[in-house]
């Protein structure tokens, strides 16, 4: 295959089965660059934002796909366009504000080249020069100097884009199962942004994705969840893959754990610790089933979290091999009543940069990066729990979801494919 070959060592996955992930994939600069090209700028659907973030014509919001900056824009016809935030002239960043309204045109502040909300070049100052001198050549073709325009698809208010012409339609890429669970949360009700959180986490971006595909850790690391029954490995649960194994959804039902006192050998620091204010962990049913935690990971860059009533997209922005940004967009629905609005704000304490649950995650990811960065060549992560395969199942003591991620990863990166 034509996988990245950073040195004479060649394909670092050669000869390894699904249970090994060479640590090099988390720290190698050449592999990282190949990931940007083949994954983020390749045939994948990347999260861009929510349609409700740009309600009016000309509204824009700035974001990232991989390391490339993009703008999500509401067009005149009500549709959404996504263009690269880079002027076609000299490459300057077009919009500096995080969000705003561009009016009818996007104009570069440097030389005032102007573009339609679709990215077509419409005008530039002194096109004909000054007093018959200077100016653009007569054969300068404006139609060839628009902004980089991405293909856009929306699914019930959520906007995805791809740089690649060959990416299959999003419902095909996700597959029926993933669409089904995606539209469980994004069920067509009008969305409302509750607020954002952004944080730099000094670990490779893949570790963030893997963390949400690792139910094993959730029932061990997160003592807060274990203590309050918000997540236990013995709860009624299920997880599913798409065909390519890169997308997954994992669900659990609170209150189905077998025995309050059985922690499966996990060392719980303070098993008697209780909350004096229980409101934080009292969810309200809202999706017509008994699922209390649903985590969907969509390859390569977004996680949809529905823990109790705290709903959020977690968007991964890679920042070099050893760092990434995590952007949380907490959302609710326009028709949320005031009690639900309060619940969403209150339960946000579980998540985000200071979250009762997720601060453990950010810390553990940094422990991972610190540990593996100095590992010798050939050293690899071990993923042997629950076999070698990646099939849907109902036991959370498993590493199947991470194995699935690397099946898709090896495939799209051009590394040797792994057969379980």
């Amino acid at each position: 295959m034509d996988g990245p070959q950073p040195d004479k060592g060649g394909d670092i996955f050669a000869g390894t089965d699904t249970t090994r992930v060479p640590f090099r994939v988390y720290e190698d600069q050449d592999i990282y660059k190949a990931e940007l090209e083949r994954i983020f700028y390749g045939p994948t659907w990347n999260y861009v934002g929510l349609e409700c973030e740009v309600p009016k014509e000309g509204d824009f919001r700035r974001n990232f796909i991989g390391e490339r900056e993009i703008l999500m824009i509401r067009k005149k016809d009500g549709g959404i366009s996504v263009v690269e935030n880079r002027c076609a002239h000299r490459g300057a960043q077009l919009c500096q504000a995080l969000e705003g309204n561009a009016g009818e045109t996007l104009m570069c502040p440097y030389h005032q080249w102007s573009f339609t909300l679709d990215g077509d070049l419409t005008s530039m100052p002194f096109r004909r020069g000054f007093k018959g001198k200077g100016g653009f050549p007569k054969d300068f073709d404006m139609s060839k100097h628009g902004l980089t325009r991405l293909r856009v698809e929306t699914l019930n208010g959520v906007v995805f884009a791809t740089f690649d012409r060959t990416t299959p339609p999003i419902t095909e890429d996700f597959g029926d199962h993933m669409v089904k669970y995606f539209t469980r949360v994004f069920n067509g009700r009008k969305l409302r942004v509750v607020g954002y959180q952004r944080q730099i986490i000094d670990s490779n971006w893949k570790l963030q994705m893997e963390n949400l595909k690792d139910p094993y850790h959730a029932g061990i690391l997160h003592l807060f969840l274990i203590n309050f029954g918000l997540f236990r490995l013995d709860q009624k649960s299920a997880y599913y893959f798409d065909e390519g194994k890169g997308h997954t959804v994992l669900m659990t039902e609170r209150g189905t754990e077998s025995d309050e006192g059985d922690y499966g050998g996990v060392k719980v620091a303070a098993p008697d610790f209780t909350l004096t204010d229980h409101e934080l962990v009292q969810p309200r049913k809202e999706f017509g089933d008994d699922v209390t935690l649903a985590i969907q990971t969509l390859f390569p860059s977004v996680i949809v979290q529905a823990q109790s009533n705290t709903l959020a997209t977690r968007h991964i922005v890679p920042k070099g091999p050893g760092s990434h940004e995590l952007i949380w967009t907490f959302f609710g629905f326009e028709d949320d009543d005031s009690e639900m609005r309060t619940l969403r704000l209150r339960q946000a304490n579980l998540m985000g940069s200071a979250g009762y649950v997720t601060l453990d995650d950010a810390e553990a990811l940094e422990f991972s990066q610190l540990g593996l960065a100095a590992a010798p060549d050939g050293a690899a992560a071990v993923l042997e729990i629950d076999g070698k395969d990646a099939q849907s199942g109902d036991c959370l003591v498993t590493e199947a979801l991470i194995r699935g991620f690397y099946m898709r990863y090896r495939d799209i990166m051009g590394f040797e494919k792994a057969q379980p």
Partner: protein
Amino acid sequence: MDQIDTPLDADTHLIRHRVEQLQLDYVHAIDDGAIDRWPGFFTERCLYAIIARDNLERGQELGVMRFESRAMLVDRATATQHAAVFAPRTLCHVLSGTSIEAVDENGIRARTNVAIYQTSADGDTLLLMAATYRDLVVEADGALLFKEKRVIYDTLRLPDSVVNPL
């Protein structure tokens, strides 16, 4: 010579001095790692929130932390001590002077800028955030307490997790 219309109000000076002392006691408790003392700086019904300025400017109250009673603060303190996994760190709050924005029947509205530095076990220091305390301070049994403390931070892209209260 300019005429002084209003004699300097000794009470205002006293109030500022007392609020600044409260702020110092508060940040020193946190910087000393005495997290169990943290809830004691607040009234029983209170608001403690750490919110990005970016959210507030959009009218969004979503915070990194948001607690509405001293009981919830006690929960946070206990959970941080017994149910959280994180690398050891110390904080250093650097405060500006405090401006007293209003004194009325609700209490004292005070505003203080704060830079919060965080140092790891290896001794590396980073600026965790540049922020402003927007406080409502009340007096109870002769002592000043926070009825509201909002930590409004400019540092939208936080460089690390927020483990401790700020």
